[in-house]
């Protein structure tokens, strides 16, 4: 069942952080949310898992209206896994294994720690180590595994690859996109990552200003600049070469250029 947002408004006190956002994300969709710093991405996705309640409007997750008085928020949180920005700061257990098992235990599920570790590419040898003895990138993977271990139907990731090395970033994202039957909502500042999703939502000053396939979105550079965004490098290269065509990735760009030569 989908995640539906209707005219959602939210403010932290001063100006509106979200000023009337409506959208619908279907089961199993791969969606990127992009937008300048402070445009409301984090605020929006925290509603998906009922950490914030709508001040106005509605958020319905798999048929559960999270604003309703008797809404089962636990159920919402079990269905929607949310990986925070810099999730490595939420680790607290003595071993990696215990930390990953924290979520499943809270939800009364059987913790399948090894499976979760495999999903993020962590060697099982690390299971008995203290999470605080790991590198930053490994800690990040442990934290993500801790959310994956609850087997959410919808997975929301707030900049999961920020601060990782290029190869690790690629590998982690590929693993996440491999998850089957899971909705993936990826908040990111990297347009190459957004380009790999089926759909890109653009946020600007608390509003949803575009909701398109990446190919369509990145084709028009003028609009992107207005939202403080930039098309991925291969797309910009093709524009600079004057080769108007719809490419997204380096491989596609190479094909197009070679076809011209």
């Amino acid at each position, binding site marked *: 069942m989908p995640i539906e947002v209707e005219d959602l408004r939210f403010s932290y006190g001063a100006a509106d952080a979200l000023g009337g956002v409506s959208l619908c994300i279907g089961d199993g969709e791969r969606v990127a949310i992009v937008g300048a710093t402070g445009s409301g991405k984090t605020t929006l996705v925290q509603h998906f898992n009922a*950490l914030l309640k709508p001040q106005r409007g509605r958020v319905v997750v798999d048929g559960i209206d999270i604003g309703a008085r008797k809404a089962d928020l*636990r159920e919402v*949180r079990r269905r929607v896994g949310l990986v*925070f920005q810099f999730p490595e*700061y*939420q680790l*607290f257990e003595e071993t990696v294994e215990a930390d990953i098992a924290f*979520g499943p235990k809270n939800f009364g599920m059987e913790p399948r720690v090894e499976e979760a570790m495999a999903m993020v590419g962590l060697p099982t040898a690390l299971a008995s180590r203290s999470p605080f003895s790991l590198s930053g990138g490994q800690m990040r993977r442990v934290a993500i595994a801790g959310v994956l271990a609850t087997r959410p139907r919808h997975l929301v990731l707030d900049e999961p690859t920020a601060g990782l090395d290029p190869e690790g970033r690629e590998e982690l994202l590929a693993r996440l996109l491999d998850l089957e039957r899971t909705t993936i909502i990826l908040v990111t500042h990297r347009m190459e990552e957004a380009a790999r999703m089926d759909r890109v939502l653009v946020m600007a000053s608390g509003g949803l200003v575009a909701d398109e396939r990446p190919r369509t979105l990145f084709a028009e550079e003028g609009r992107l600049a207005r939202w403080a965004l930039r098309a991925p490098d291969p797309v910009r290269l093709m524009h600079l070469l004057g080769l108007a065509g719809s490419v997204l990735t380096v491989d596609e760009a190479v094909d197009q250029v070679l076809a011209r030569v």
Partner: protein
Amino acid sequence: MFKAAVIGQYIAGDSPIHRLDARTKILILLAYVIALFLAWTWAGQAALVAFAVGCLLCARLPVRSVIRGLRPILWLVAITLVLNALMTPGPVAYRILGFITISRPGIDFGLQMAVRLLLLFMASSLLTLTTPPVELTDGMESVLNPFRRLGVPAHDIAMMMTIALRFIPTLMTETERIMRAQAARGADFEHGSLGQRMRAMVPLLVPLFVSAFRRADELATAMEARAYRGGEGRTRWRQRHLGAADAMAGAAMLALVAVLVVVR
């Protein structure tokens, strides 16, 4: 939800009290607190209350936030009152259920202690409400400076206070962030027995301490990188001078002391 917990946080303003030098305010507060515990007559307490209320009015603070700030200690005041009334021996004034006795001196003493606590709290929050933290710690340092010969590390104390104050909001934001992150993993901080709720704090406190230590470590490195080596030979960016207002405030405090001596 944590925002309300900050008691006595500076409220910007331009009242005569705001403009006083921090050193003046600290010394007056010190004198006031000493007077508070030396004055034993009702007339003396009335004078102390009048002085505090006068300062409060002068400071032109939003009354509501001052009252809200007093709320957390009301329990303490109530307990003090009750305990003193029950425990102080003397002629029995009231009898409840036959065996609980309340003595007249007990009531008197309890009330005096309650007033004292309220005044103590109000006076000290008046200082922090009207003085920016940086000025407060600078003032602290100058007031403690004469005691350096006795081995009081004036500069270090002031620096520690500055840093602690600086990090309160940061730690609060951090707490909220970690709480949300754990709630997303199904942690429940609001339901369950007392024991369960205490156990639920572990996933909050461990990351909080880890990040506090990390921050402290980073700060220490950053300070060392800028060649910080304590207060020796350090000069001030902002030089403060005592003025006529400070003299007047001091005179007011002396007048209060005079009144207290007279009504003794």
